[in-house]
């Protein structure tokens, strides 16, 4: 077309900058979206700090912290079973039939004890059900409770301290040593192997090296 150069432009001149702007902007947006998803959609963000309200205002800070009760006093199956059992009501009443026997805050516990109806605790550490976690082997390998549960002894209401994501599990399964403590220190939440200069390999009480499974069927079956 011979008069092509005298075509009246449809778009104002500034639109010439759009391509440049897009060229620079698009990658930025893309990267930030990826980063956002990667961070905000991960259990690190979604799950850590999950602190549901419990039916009974039981304070670990008081019992495990101040009074220094051993975790295994209540969670007695932790060394024998996959599941760290929540204590039966009778365990509570073991003390609280004498101590604070009349306290209104223990009303529910007493009722449960009489009626035989269990107390409906809210689960805090919820592993996906297709992941099989076994407490006994971890405790017996000298993994400190705090490594996964955080400083329970400082929590009034228990909350989730770690992401409990697969990646997080693998970190430790690939290099367990930093989280290992002497067997007798497992429930000592304040024990810091690094500070104590604890070297699992040198521990005479260990019968075997710790080599956690890293293959799928180690946890998924």
């Amino acid at each position, binding site marked *: *077309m011979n008069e*092509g150069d005298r*075509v009246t432009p449809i778009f104002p001149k500034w639109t*010439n900058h759009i391509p440049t702007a897009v060229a620079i902007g698009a990658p930025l947006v893309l990267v930030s979206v990826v980063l956002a998803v*990667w961070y905000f959609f991960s259990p690190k963000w979604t799950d850590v700090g999950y602190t549901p309200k419990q039916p009974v205002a039981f304070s670990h800070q008081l019992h495990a912290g101040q009074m220094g009760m051993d975790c295994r006093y209540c969670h007695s199956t932790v060394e024998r079973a996959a599941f760290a059992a929540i204590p039966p009501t009778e365990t509570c009443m073991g003390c609280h039939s004498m101590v604070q026997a009349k306290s209104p805050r223990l009303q529910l516990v007493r009722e449960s004890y009489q009626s035989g109806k269990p107390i409906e605790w809210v689960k805090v550490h919820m592993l996906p059900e297709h992941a099989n976690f076994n407490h006994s082997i971890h405790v017996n390998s000298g993994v400190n409770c705090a490594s996964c549960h955080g400083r329970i002894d400082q929590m009034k209401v228990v909350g989730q301290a770690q*992401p409990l*994501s*697969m*990646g997080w599990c693998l970190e430790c399964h690939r290099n367990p040593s930093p989280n290992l403590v002497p067997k007798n220190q497992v429930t000592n939440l304040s024990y810091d192997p690094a500070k104590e200069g604890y070297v699992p390999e040198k521990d005479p009480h260990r019968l075997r090296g710790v080599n956690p499974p890293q293959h799928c069927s180690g946890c998924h079956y």
Partner: protein
Amino acid sequence: MDTSVTLANLEEHVDKRSPLVLGSETFSSVTNIVSRPMEMTTPKAWWICFLIALSGLGVLGAAIGYLFWEGVGVWGLNNRVGWAWDITNFVFWVGIGHAGTLISAILFLFRQKWRTSINRAAEAMTIFAVICALIFPGIHVGRVWVAYWLFPIPNQMAMWPNFRSPLLWDVFAVSTYFTVSTLFWFVGLIPDIATFRDRSKGIRKFVYGLFALGWRGSHRHWLNYERAYLILAALSTPLVLSVHTIVSFDFATSQLPGWHATIFPPYFVAGAIFSGFAMVINLMIICRWVFKLEHLVTMRHFENMAKIILLTGSMVGYAYAMEFFIAWYSGNPYERYIFISRATGPYAWAYWTMVTCNVIIPQLFWVRKIRTNLWALFIISVFVNIGMWFERFVIIVTSLHRTFLPSSWAYFKPTYVDIATFIGSFGLFFTLFLLFIRFLPIVAIAEVKTVMPEADPHGHDHGHHAKGGAH
């Protein structure tokens, strides 16, 4: 149609190449011919076709929705035959999607000027076919909602996809192919879109203008355009071969008798071009007739395509024969059995349909009368497409239904959902294609002009109006 004109450019002359554009078409008349379909008021026929196609698309949507709701069980698959129509359709459509890029890229590099009047439609067809193809790997998985695990995205599981899996290569191969073809197609469109921008007004002008990217046809534009087009052509050429090679790896690298064959990559590529050209012929014959493109899309184009079909068809036939030979020559009883059962077993009907459509019928193209007869061309091409669908079905299903252990032999029967999904995919294809012929030039105007005598700067005889003799 005026056969005298059509046949005119079939003979080769010693002194000059016979023209690719017939009649006394000029640059502007070509533009007008191609613009007509888009500038005329939408014809009833188009609406009817469009509605039919659209309802086909609806069927596809319904079938897929039902599939997602109920699970893959709504298909006829079983524990022995884990793939059937889903992957058959996938390979079928990818195959269709081959001719386009071959025509536009490879023929371009080989300076096959006759490509110019068909490449645009062929490329469009390619893109739409690949879209149809891409659906199936997506929906055939059991848990669609986690299908994104196929892509290497960092995640809290610290898991990557398995890069050893041909299925993963597929994901990359096909999506790359799709991206590049689309880009290639679009770049080719720019000058023509600009033409329409200049011819139309109002909202159309704006939209076309948007996609014309400010094309003014200046010398610099043409220079960059040509370079970009050449580069893209060079880029997509290997893709033409790679994509179907990798699709064939899905089967070739696994170890089932009937799948595990080294001949698959070339055999698949040949088959793809075979079916692709058949589809181009079908589409072009209709467009040519509907939009009176006889002078642009000439019998010579069809004859060339028919020759390619004859060639690739024979290659496919050779592959079939070779499979049998190897099965016998290898002395591998599983291999032998699977081929015997292909020809004589429960699926013999499918096998012989395939052989008839792909090997026997295309041989008719040896006869010039047949390959220059539009009806024959059309019908034979349809057969080729049917045959090529069955080829994939035979490869996938007959191999799976009779594997190593006779205890695990089963028979596959499609459910109506299988059928609906397949038909629906055609609905999607034609919906897109109808939109294309309505809103975009089905012939690359700018390129066609380059092959017209007027485009030749040193042409000694500028058509009939220039005086003879040199200056």
